[in-house]
């Protein structure tokens, strides 16, 4: 068991646990926001069952003065709002960690023996100042006291949150916070961890992956968003709906089939259009996803995975849909699959996805997962100055003559005149078609070949336009990791931890999963001393792509499929274990 303060990094983790419906997530997030505003870096991890009431919810806030990339591994301070939290989360506490608990509902005897108890009359204080609902406020203030963190920032956060509702409620919360703070302060001397504000730190924002995608879509000039709620993509719909006033038509439709078909219709009028869902919804979208391919529609589709198949584990995470999105829908057509690894990627890849869709006139998938979608991290505000709009060969106004929607061209891109342009009579067609769009003609063998080749030629252009993989770490390393998507954060933290021990690791993040960047991945693997593929699934879907596209195999692999994201500790441990084994001979032979 880890010792308190033993961790190499100077960050602290605070977990709040309690019954579903107790406002755990909101409490954790306001704690994170308080820290962020005081110049600290934060990352949340929310864990909850797919229930509105009755389950056990926890949020763990990792906070520290130096940046990090993933969630906390163990817990320094546990705020236990009920007995179940002590039982379930007690074992995650480090040796010497603190449990803030209410002696009225949790018996001291039930606390784990390796932790110290901090009794605070959570319910009593809350009731005195306005109601049990303020219990979370008391508990958070108590955690701050243990760290000797000043209370004022939290008080202003409470004012910011409640002043507009009622001055009385705001005042009550502040009083409750002060009392909780004072009570826990008595125990702070015994607790060695300290956390202080960092004055003059740059401004930051607290975002989860879905916020980042929405901001990217808004920046890109999205005009239409359609979706059917499905965890973890639902908050995209909520966010977009709140921003209809910015000039977006947002539609909660009857099913995912409608969402995808509407988005294709919206693309026909030249609107920038997107839908998003999880794997189940994308299964329903598959046919219309292919429609976007054959009709050459510029659409962006977000697929944010959770463990499948079928309903699976709605609120947990997995990277089980990589091969699915690469192959979804019957027939062959060009597509691009982009996998953001963190919130910054999610923002920038989203606006780039719209440009790619317009340049290539084909569907572009943003592939994420619950781990990225759901959890908030403090990040520097996104660099909006980098956002560009490239609509490719889209003709929105004026007149065209001798117009052919599917004109055969050297790069496969046919200029696209949208309805309203004079002379733009056309037939956009789900059937195979000729250059005009006629289905009857599309059945001729030579026309089929012409149009099929024209479409597939766009894949060549896609290879030149889609973002290249990103390399992290030294050129030469003891362990070389290849991965995609949200494993990026834990991998980067693991690299830092390993470096502190004298083990070097580097990492190639596959950003565009399709078309697969075979040249870059092959080059990276060819010079690796020990190569490792890390992926959050059972079958090794990225590794399958590497074998197929690079004709190479990695030395080892690390998979996780229990619905949880990798921790950096787990990845670091795998690397250490590999280093203990002899490195493979560099024979220069592809294996």
């Amino acid at each position, binding site marked *: 068991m880890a010792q308190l303060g033993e961790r190499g990094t100077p960050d602290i983790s605070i977990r709040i646990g309690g019954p579903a419906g107790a406002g755990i997530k909101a409490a954790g997030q306001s704690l994170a926001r308080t820290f962020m505003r005081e110049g600290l870096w934060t990352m949340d991890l929310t864990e909850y069952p797919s229930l509105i009431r009755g389950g056990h919810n926890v949020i763990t806030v990792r906070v520290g003065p130096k940046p990090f990339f993933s969630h906390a591994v163990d817990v320094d301070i546990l705020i236990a709002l009920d007995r179940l939290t002590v039982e379930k989360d007690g074992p995650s506490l480090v040796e010497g960690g603190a449990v803030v608990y209410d002696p009225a509902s949790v018996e001291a005897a039930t606390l784990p023996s390796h932790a110290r108890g901090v009794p605070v009359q959570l319910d009593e204080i809350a009731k005195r100042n306005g109601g049990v609902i303020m219990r979370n406020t008391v508990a958070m203030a108590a955690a701050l006291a243990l760290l000797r963190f000043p209370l004022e920032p939290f008080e202003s956060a409470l004012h910011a949150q409640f002043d507009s509702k009622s001055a009385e409620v705001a005042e009550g919360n502040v009083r409750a916070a002060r009392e909780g703070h004072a009570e826990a302060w008595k125990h702070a001397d015994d607790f060695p961890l300290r956390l202080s504000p960092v004055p003059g730190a740059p401004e930051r924002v607290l975002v989860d992956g879905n916020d980042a995608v929405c901001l990217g879509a808004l*920046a890109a000039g*999205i005009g239409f968003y359609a979706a059917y709620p499905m965890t973890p993509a639902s908050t995209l719909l909520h966010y977009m709906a709140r921003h*209809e006033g910015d000039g977006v038509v947002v*539609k909660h439709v009857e099913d995912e089939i409608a969402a995808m078909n509407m988005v294709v*219709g919206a693309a026909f009028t030249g609107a920038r259009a997107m839908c998003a869902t999880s794997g189940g919804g994308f299964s329903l979208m598959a046919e219309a996803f292919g*429609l976007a391919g054959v009709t050459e529609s510029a659409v962006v589709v977000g697929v944010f995975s959770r463990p499948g198949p079928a309903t699976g584990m709605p609120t947990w995470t997995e990277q089980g849909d990589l091969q699915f999105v690469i192959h979804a829908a019957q027939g062959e057509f060009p597509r691009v699959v982009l996998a953001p690894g963190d919130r910054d990627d999610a923002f920038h890849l989203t606006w780039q996805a719209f440009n790619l869709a317009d340049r290539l006139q084909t569907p572009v998938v943003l592939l994420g997962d619950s781990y990225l979608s759901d959890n908030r991290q403090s990040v520097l505000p996104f660099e909006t100055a980098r956002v560009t709009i490239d609509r490719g060969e889209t003709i929105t106004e004026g007149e065209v003559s001798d117009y052919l929607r599917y004109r055969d061209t050297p790069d496969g891109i046919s200029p696209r005149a949208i309805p309203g342009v004079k002379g733009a009579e056309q037939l956009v067609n789900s059937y195979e078609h000729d250059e005009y*769009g006629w289905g009857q003609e599309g059945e001729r063998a030579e026309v089929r070949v012409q149009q099929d080749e024209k479409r597939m030629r766009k894949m060549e252009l896609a290879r030149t336009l889609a973002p290249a993989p990103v390399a992290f770490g030294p050129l030469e390393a003891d362990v070389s990791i290849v991965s995609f998507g949200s494993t990026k954060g834990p991998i980067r933290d693991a690299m830092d931890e390993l470096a502190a021990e004298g083990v070097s690791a580097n990492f190639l993040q596959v950003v565009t999963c399709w078309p697969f960047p075979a040249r870059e991945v092959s080059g990276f693997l060819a010079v690796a001393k020990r190569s490792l593929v890390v992926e959050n699934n059972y079958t090794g879907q990225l590794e399958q792509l590497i074998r197929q596209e690079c004709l190479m195999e990695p030395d080892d692999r690390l998979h996780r499929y229990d619905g949880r994201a990798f921790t950096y500790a787990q990845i670091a441990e795998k690397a250490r274990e590999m280093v203990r084994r002899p490195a493979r001979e560099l024979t220069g032979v592809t294996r």
Partner: protein
Amino acid sequence: MPTVAELEQACKPTWCPGCGDFQMWKALKQAIENVGYTYERFAVVWGIGNAGNGADFLRCQGFHALHGRALPTATGIALTNPELKVIVEMGDGDGYGIGGNHFLHSCRRNVEMVGIFHNNQIYGLTTGQASPTSDQFMKTPSTPGGVIEEPVNPVGVAVAQGATFVARTFSGDVAYTQSIYEQALRHHGFAVVDVFQPCPTWNKNNTFKWYAERVYKLEDEPGYDPDSRVWAFEKSLSTFHDLTCAPDSCRLPVGVFYREEGVPTYQDRLPQLAQPMWRQARKPRDISRAMRALG
């Protein structure tokens, strides 16, 4: 503004001789000419089926969508370009079977567009299986023992579900069909037009003669009241019959069942849709306020 001749393509119809789709094609072209849209101001979306095959034959800004999905595709068009009148052409399998869910929701959504349903009470393109509107007990390759279910009542569903213009016509009366089309095109809201369209190749039961002997015009009836939703629903029920019914015991009303003007359309309730949505993507949108809200 295209004339009937200009609305025709070099690609010529491939429907079977005597198919009701020819008559519907004729009526639609004439209605579009009469209403007087320019090519830039209307779009047509087709589903898949023999009805959908009309996509090749009408010169316009067209979209030949998926089987069953023409309505959502059309909705995506209508909700992103307020300057387009969208016409949707579907079969009965297409619109009421596989696309039934979209039909239901399109009615309650009241998006301004016109849905034309080629109701031949059979699956034409896939060689004659029963459709959702096939009469009960009808024998087809997929129902050798006869259809067990009650047919879908599209007019009743549309009225019940809030469509603001609901009509039915018989393709055999081209002039009448055309006049119904024109009213539907001029309607501000979702217009449903169900068209009895004989399929001489596969439906040997509901033939031209069969329909002609049974249809009558609603407006000729005393008490004609298309402002009343209850009246319209009641009238929609009278279409239920069985295979052996005699013409005089099985009267099929055609005409406008229900019409409600002045109801705001879905588009009317979207202030951001004052202009085509592609205009939103001319330069990067300023997101500084949205980003600050997360600080």
